[in-house]
């Protein structure tokens, strides 16, 4: 026993272990994603660079993508901060319920969510919006909102409440205290939340498909346009758009990481009486934010449940798709658990000083539009003429990989190193320290990461559509139903998926 422990703790084993982890990431997760940059087109006989000519259609799609992402971020922040503040600062039951409600849209696969939101606003619901630009915005606000509230409440929670109290004893109203003290102190959290939402919005496909109009109301975001190009076999155009999306996302990520510690929120201007007046309106009761949350996020997200109707003979197809979806999500999660925790260790411990580099590369995978990712991966793996199911699984491994690495790396970083030192002093080898101290302590975040990776894979549409021809995952099937105007079946499949996801999340969380 002692011998094996000692061997497993040795330097050579460590080097081999991290080499495998790095190789797995670079060769199987990362390189395939960038393949699209090297090889402009799928025809292996010729290196045809993507056409640099950007059509009006492309620039329209890009414009739509950016303006929608920008507006969604602004709306999310305005209406998300109050709710995040309640979740972070209140100690009542309200916090528990809100926490649960805010998470609910996350469980919903984005295609189903987009479908539901489109139904709610469209002719089948309250009829306020028709498909097109504004409908896409409504969809994007709905699916990004939980991300921003989650990230912001975590960031607010990290700011010591004593600062707010100190500010108030110095004479500021609660609102002024929040704006001048808490807000600047969690600005990097705010920036990161904004980036997350912006890139999520930029890369979303499944939900957006549900809101793309037709004729003069037609509006597509860049990922959807990419998908349309691919479906009409206009591959150079699809590749061009993908490359632009990859470049922009990477640039944004780099910019935010650079800015995170540098930009300041100026506090000099203060309007004591105006802010006091605002404060006395009792906005901290968050009436508007709550109304927004319920009317714009919650109701539309689950509106589709009204439409559930069972039509003949589709049950088998739906169950098949759910089976495929779960198989792929499960396989991807297991593979990522094995290799992702190793990467998390490397990043969290900053081994060999290459932690930040790999953190950046992992972040790149998160912000990358999944349609571009799918397209690239499809091209790459088809080089080896792999089975379609295997290609699908590899695509999902790539896109869910960061969702395990990020939370686990964060919790490793926060781990008190004294605990490990204490174990060493008590006679544990490094390997034993890992299995008896480190692993149990980071287990909650490993589980949380696994749940997130699983959910992410389950609800992914864009990447799947970019590679699948015969196998349909459940979000793809839902889109097929909607395209065929079979709303009842789409709602039924969504509801079924919702129930199964709910049970899976519940079971996983209970462990």
């Amino acid at each position, binding site marked *: 026993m002692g011998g094996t422990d000692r061997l497993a703790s040795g330097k050579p084993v460590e080097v081999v272990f991290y080499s495998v982890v790095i190789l797995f990431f670079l060769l199987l997760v990362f390189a395939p994603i960038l393949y699209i940059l090297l090889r402009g087109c799928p025809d292996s006989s010729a290196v045809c660079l993507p056409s640099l000519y950007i059509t009006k259609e492309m620039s329209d799609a890009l414009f739509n993508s950016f303006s929608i992402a920008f507006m969604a971020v602004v709306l999310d922040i305005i209406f998300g901060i109050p709710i995040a503040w309640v979740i972070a600062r209140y100690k009542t039951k309200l916090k528990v319920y809100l926490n649960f409600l805010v998470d609910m849209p996350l469980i919903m696969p984005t295609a189903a969510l987009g479908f539901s939101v489109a139904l709610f606003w469209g002719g089948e619901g309250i009829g306020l919006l028709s498909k097109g630009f504004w409908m896409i915005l409504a969809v994007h606000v709905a699916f990004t909102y939980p991300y921003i509230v989650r990230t912001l409440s975590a960031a607010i929670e990290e700011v010591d409440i004593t600062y707010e109290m*100190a*500010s108030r*004893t110095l004479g500021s109203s609660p609102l002024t205290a929040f704006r001048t003290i808490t807000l600047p102190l969690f600005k990097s959290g705010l920036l990161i939340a904004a980036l997350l939402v912006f890139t999520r919005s930029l890369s979303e496909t499944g939900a957006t498909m549900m809101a793309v109009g037709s004729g003069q109301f037609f509006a597509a975001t860049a990922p959807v346009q990419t998908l349309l190009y691919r479906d009409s076999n206009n591959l150079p155009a699809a590749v061009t758009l993908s490359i632009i999306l990859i470049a922009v996302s990477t640039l944004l990520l780099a910019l935010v990481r650079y800015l995170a510690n540098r930009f300041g929120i100026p506090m000099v201007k203060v309007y004591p009486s105006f802010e006091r007046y605002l404060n006395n309106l009792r906005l901290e009761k968050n009436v508007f934010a709550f109304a927004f949350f319920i009317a714009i996020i919650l109701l539309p997200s689950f509106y589709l449940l009204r439409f559930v109707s069972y039509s003949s003979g589709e049950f088998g197809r739906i169950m098949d798709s759910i089976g495929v979806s779960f198989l792929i999500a499960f396989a991807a999660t297991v593979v990522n658990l094995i290799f992702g925790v190793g990467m998390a260790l490397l990043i969290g411990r900053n081994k060999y000083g290459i932690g930040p580099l790999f953190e950046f590369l992992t972040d790149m995978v998160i912000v990358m539009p999944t349609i571009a990712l799918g397209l690239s991966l499809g091209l790459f793996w088809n080089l080896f003429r792999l089975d379609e199911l295997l290609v699908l699984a590899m695509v999902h491994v790539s896109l869910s990989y960061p969702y395990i690495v990020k939370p686990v790396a964060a919790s490793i970083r926060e781990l008190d190193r004294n605990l490990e030192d204490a174990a060493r002093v008590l006679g544990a080898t490094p390997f034993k320290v890992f299995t008896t101290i480190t692993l149990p302590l980071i287990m909650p975040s490993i589980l949380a990461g696994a749940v997130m990776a699983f959910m992410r894979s389950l609800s992914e549409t864009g990447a799947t559509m970019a590679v699948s021809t015969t196998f349909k995952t459940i979000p793809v099937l839902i889109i097929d139903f909607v395209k065929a105007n079979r709303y009842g079946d789409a709602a039924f499949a969504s509801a079924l998926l919702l129930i199964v996801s709910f049970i899976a999340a519940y079971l996983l969380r209970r462990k």
Partner: protein
Amino acid sequence: MPNVKLENVSKFFGNIRALEGINLEIKDSEYVVLLGPSGCGKTTLLKIIAGVWEPTSGKVYIDGKDVTNLPPEDRNIGFVFQNYALFPHLNVFDNTIYGPVIRGKDSEESRRNAREMLHLVRLAARHDAFPAELSGGMQQRLAVARALTTGSSLLFLDEPLLALDAKIGEEVRSEMRKMIKDLKLTAIHVTHDQEEAMVVADRIVVMRRGRVEQVGSPEEIYRNPANLFVAHFLGDANFIEAAAVDYGACCKLKMLRWEMEFPKVESGAYVAVVRPEKVEVGDGGAEGIVKNFRFLGGVSYVEVGIGDESVISRFPSGREYELGERVCVCFKPEDVKLFKYPDEGLKEALRVD
């Protein structure tokens, strides 16, 4: 001119009674210390006076005005937090001027005022440093300067020396008292350290389990503790089980296999409280065996075992004792504070938590 009055203030957290029926008056430019073991409710009381928390019942008056329902920002107070709560994203000067700025009074005058305040706490040279770059003592002084720049003459200090090293804390507390007195401020200071309380306070409020046990000057409280707990918490004391026996004109106090004549009290069981510096080791009195002897510099102390009790004497260093030496201890009747033997037992009556 700020004075503070509390009427029947209570605070419950669910079923826990943090404060019960506190009545207290604090006069203008008085330095009052709320003293008690942790969990006695002293910080809760401070935060209620400051308005950070609301009392469950009772009233708080500042300057004779009922401020019970006023939020902290409208009470015109200065508050120094336990960990100082210096805003980490603002430099020394911006921290100091935060109060005036936030009230929309960012004038040349308030800037001059802030600079003067920084000068007063000897931080003028560090005006562009950030809190994390300051030493513990500097952070403490900055916290005081920030609290005072609001122009308030009512200052709240919540364990302001806790985060400092012992030696620096000793310097800072005398300096702080001098400054507060020079500026004629009213100060309410919370601490669990009885020595700190004695050094800075005009008046000490001794608290225990959400109630006020005694209010008085340090000397009053030390010489005339209201009960066994106060005697125990402020300074050292011997607690000796005693019995008083009535002899007509006077009475006799029997304790430690020894007895002394004592002014007339009711017969019964008592606890005699004697400060160690009042106990003499010499001829006569109760005979016992030296159980411990320590040299502490200027003073020494010796613990003498008598039966299963022991008595501690503290005296200016000079004489030394051997363990096991047979000695006698005695003290004068006027140095004995007599308390009825508590129903709950001596140990329980002295318990600090």
